[in-house]
């Protein structure tokens, strides 16, 4: 199984990140293979972040923000993220990535249990999903 | 529609009106009943002291009924209904348990391949046959008869299992009675137990509970009480005289099965609906219902 990191979680400051910290305060436990990066808002979503993380070697990426319709601190960043994330999901599927490689979740500041549960689930799934093997150009061509 | 009908022990052995009236009535609605020949007790009687054994017995019923093509199992007794519903819930939640049970079943040469829908008689009339159909049968007739509904404890409880109506405030049986043209109202004793479950271990207490239910209900001015469960029917109808005399009173509350009431609306005759088996004073209310 190894100690290598598996999952990268992008969290928004006011909801998902607050939930992650609240999970810490409540001492809810989850596996250490998940790393959290704090962004101001889930609306900062760019597919680039997801592709880059997969390319670098993460197994799954979690993008989390505030619940629609009213919770987003910046009004509707979550809607902006949702639209782009759905497009990304369709594209990833076409490229042949497994569905669990990218996950979009809404986690409010009052839901640390949800954060811990998702962290557990996503790491467990990532461990079961085979590692992506990136081929060099000539390898891919000759395959 | 084809439904496997599970009568349960008590109906087969004593409360034959339950089966007789139900079979007659559902055939009117083009439901083909299948009565399996091989069956066994659901194990409700020892559910609390030997839970896994009763679970196995119920699983066995499911396995036998699997061999028929049907759209569900209609249970005639509330106890059997709870056992089947609960067993299915436990097997769905616990893969390991399901595997162990199936292994034992296979040793007997049977297996559970699919999980059927378990249907309670109230659910059958309200959700499957439908209120509109019942209203059409009643054909705008309005009776000046007030009916007390008795669901019975195990139709809706424990509330942690999914159920066909709100366990704390059910209304489907009232809807059925009103669709047929009768009056209903809420009463404090509506969700009280009939006491049947204590008959074997604490018979006096069981009779006391039945007395509280009958006397309590009667003081609100109801003309009739309806129920679907053979055990409830036993306490409230068959034993009403004994129960009331224990407290120095006479029987006072007519009790019928839901299927009997519906059957009367369909114009079926009293013999077919086994109304001669009712021991409560139904003659006080029957003429009014029969006046068409």
């Amino acid at each position, binding site marked *: 199984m190894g100690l290598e990191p598996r999952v990268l979680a992008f969290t928004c400051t*006011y909801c998902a990140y607050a939930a992650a910290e609240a999970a810490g305060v409540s001492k809810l436990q*989850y596996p*250490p293979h998940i790393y959290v990066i704090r962004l*101001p808002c889930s609306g*900062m979503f760019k597919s680039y972040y997801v592709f880059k993380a997969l390319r670098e070697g993460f197994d799954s990426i979690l993008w989390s923000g505030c619940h629609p319709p009213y919770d987003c*601190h910046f009004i509707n960043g979550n809607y902006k*993220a949702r639209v782009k994330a759905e497009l990304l999901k369709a594209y990833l599927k076409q490229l042949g990535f497994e569905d669990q490689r990218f996950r979009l979740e809404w986690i409010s500041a*009052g839901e640390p249990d949800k954060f811990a549960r998702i962290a557990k689930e996503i790491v467990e799934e990532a461990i079961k999903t085979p590692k992506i093997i990136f081929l060099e150009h000539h390898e891919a061509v000759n395959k | 529609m084809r439904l496997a009908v599970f009568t349960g022990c008590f109906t087969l052995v004593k409360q034959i009106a339950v089966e007789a009236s139900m079979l007659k009535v559902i055939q009117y609605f083009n439901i083909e009943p299948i009565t399996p020949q091989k069956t066994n007790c659901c194990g409700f009687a020892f559910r609390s002291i030997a839970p896994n054994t009763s679970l196995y017995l119920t699983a066995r019923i499911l396995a036998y009924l699997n061999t028929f093509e049907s759209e569900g199992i209609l249970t005639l007794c509330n106890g059997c209904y709870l056992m089947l519903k609960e067993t299915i819930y436990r097997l769905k939640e616990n893969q390991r348990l399901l595997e162990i049970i199936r292994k034992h079943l296979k040793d007997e040469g049977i297996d559970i391949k699919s999980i059927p829908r378990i249907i309670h008689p109230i659910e059958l009339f309200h959700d499957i046959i439908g209120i509109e159909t019942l209203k059409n049968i009643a054909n705008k007739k309005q009776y000046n008869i007030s009916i007390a509904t008795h669901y019975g404890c195990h139709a809706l409880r424990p509330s942690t299992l999914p159920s066909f109506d709100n366990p704390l405030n059910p209304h489907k049986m009232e809807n059925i009675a009103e669709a047929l043209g009768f009056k209903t109202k809420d009463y*404090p004793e509506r969700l009280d137990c009939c006491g049947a479950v204590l008959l074997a271990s604490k018979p006096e207490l069981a009779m006391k509970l039945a007395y509280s239910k009958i006397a309590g209900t009667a003081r609100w001015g109801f003309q009739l009480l309806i129920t679907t469960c053979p055990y409830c029917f036993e306490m409230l109808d068959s034993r009403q005289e004994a129960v009331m005399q224990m407290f120095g009173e006479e029987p006072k509350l007519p009790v019928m099965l839901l299927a009997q009431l519906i059957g009367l609306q369909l114009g079926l005759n009293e013999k077919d609906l086994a109304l001669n088996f009712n021991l409560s004073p139904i003659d006080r209310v029957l003429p009014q219902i029969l006046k068409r």
Partner: protein
Amino acid sequence: MNILDSSAKTAVFICHCGTNIGGVIDISKIIEKLKNIPSIAVAQDHRFLCSTDGIETMINSIKTSNADRVVVAACSFRTHEPLFQEALHRAGLNPYLLELVNIRELCSWVHENERDRATEKALKMIRAAIMKIQDNQPLKRIRLPVTPAALVIGGGIAGIRAALDIAEAGFTVYLVEKEPSIGGNMAKLDKTFPTLDCSICILGPLMNIVAHHPNIKLYTYSEVISINGRVGDFSVKILKKPRYVREDLCRGCLICIAKCPSKTVDEFNMGLSHRKAIYVPFPQAVPRIPVIDTASCLYFQKGICRACEKLCPANAIDFNQKEEVVEIKVGAIVVATGFEEYNISQVYEYSYGRYPNIVTGLQLERLVSSYGPTEGRLIAPGLNREPRRIAIINCVGSRDERHLPYCCRVGCMASLKHSWYIKHLMPEAEVFIFADEVRASGKGFEEFYRRVRLIPGVYIVKSKASEVRGNPDGTLTIKAFDPAISSEITITVDLVVLEAGIVASRGTESIKNLLKLGALNSGGFLIELHPKLNPVETAVDGVYICGAVSGPKDIPDTVAQASAAASKVISLLSRGYIETQPYSAIVDESRCSGCGVCSSVCEYSAIKIVKKKERSVAVVDEALCKGCGACVGSCPSRAIEIANLKLNQIDAMVAEILR
């Protein structure tokens, strides 16, 4: 860029936080590994970095090592970011050349049983922060002015207290209340525990001061419909609903009410009586100007009557009055929208709503109140006579997984007060309180408990009542198991009082949405910034909450919070300026094509497309920019980034974690 190549010199400080971090993570091991990296100017640990000693040590180490940026691995940025930023400033560094790594909430506290992995993870998190900080730029805070006025939403005791405190400090306060009068729930109470003060007698004077205070602008029968802006500069729209009575002409004689022929259910008396279509909610209402309720007014419904108009000596009735929208500007907002009773008809076993002689605690307050439906005589609604035996059932809907999991905080004391009311009005009555425990924790509460339970005829059964059943004669029967006598008891009473659980008032939801505040799922209470250290602030700067809207509480705690919120507001308004955190969007004009997508997604209209030389480029107004990053997500050219959170910095973090 490899961590080894960097020319910047980074100081790294790791906090043990006692054993919170040090007990799980092997910090000395991490320090060892960090020391091997040449660009690390100093790597040091400390037991409590946030202590005076910790800060001093940090400042000294920064100075002596000539570090030009700092990584601190400790707790949440919410707790100590300003403290560490200040430390950098004192050490001569720009406060934004700081990266905080949370190895407590995000590591040691959540991986307590996996020390090796937690240590490895902490090391990776720290290295990632070191990589990120290489590209941090010094940033400057911006000073923005603060409008010297405040908005208080909600005119109950919390809103009244907060408004008075802020007004006394010399600032303009707009107090908005959606009911026709201020006073809130406290105006409905007869007396308050444990002193048994007459509630309206202590509340009334405060209401009157509010009405006449030169600095308070009172908007009753009004609601807040939109809020825009930022701390120090909020633009608020208030909707004044039409009373159909001219406030400038009405003299408060109330002849209109006496002659009105139409009646409807009285909400202030909680459904126990009727009021006219034109009404003042209670005699001590502020302002004492009637309101016409169009749903029950014969003129609005059928075009007839108009008796009030004909009889008003001041010609103050105006059926053509329209709603009005008022726009105001304030620097701070206090939310004090209070509570209401939970809908206990859902608690089926207590049969509320099924029989007439079952009332809630607040309904009992109205029954015994001298300006209530029975003018203070306790009459059981369905029996039409005085009740001789009364049962009070506590915790209805509260402490119940099916309904509200939390304790309502005031029910136990309210039940004792209610017993006192009943015995005071009818000394021969018998009162049975059904409560599995009695919570009397406040000042004077235990003494009041003793006083009430020693009254002859008050019986406290230490058990939750199992069910309430009605009898044909209108009485009610309750069963419970009394542990004191180890026996089931059955009691028949004339009246049942249910102490209902409490939830945030229904108006709270729309305010929560307008302000983007968080709320708890159960009860709808608004979430404070920190439950221990910031009970009246919220995650939104400049917005404060106080009173029952943030959680069930009694009057002393409510007033304390209201004054606390007011003091925060006064501090903000008297300082006169705010300094923003400068994490705003920055445009790289060499990459910007002026496409305008960023401008179109910015919710704060902070980006404009401007012609510079022959090109169009995006320009960001830092005062308006909130730093949310929506523009960053939308830019196709990677021309706009958030300061100190650039794409290459995130890339560096990602790569470093996986190295």
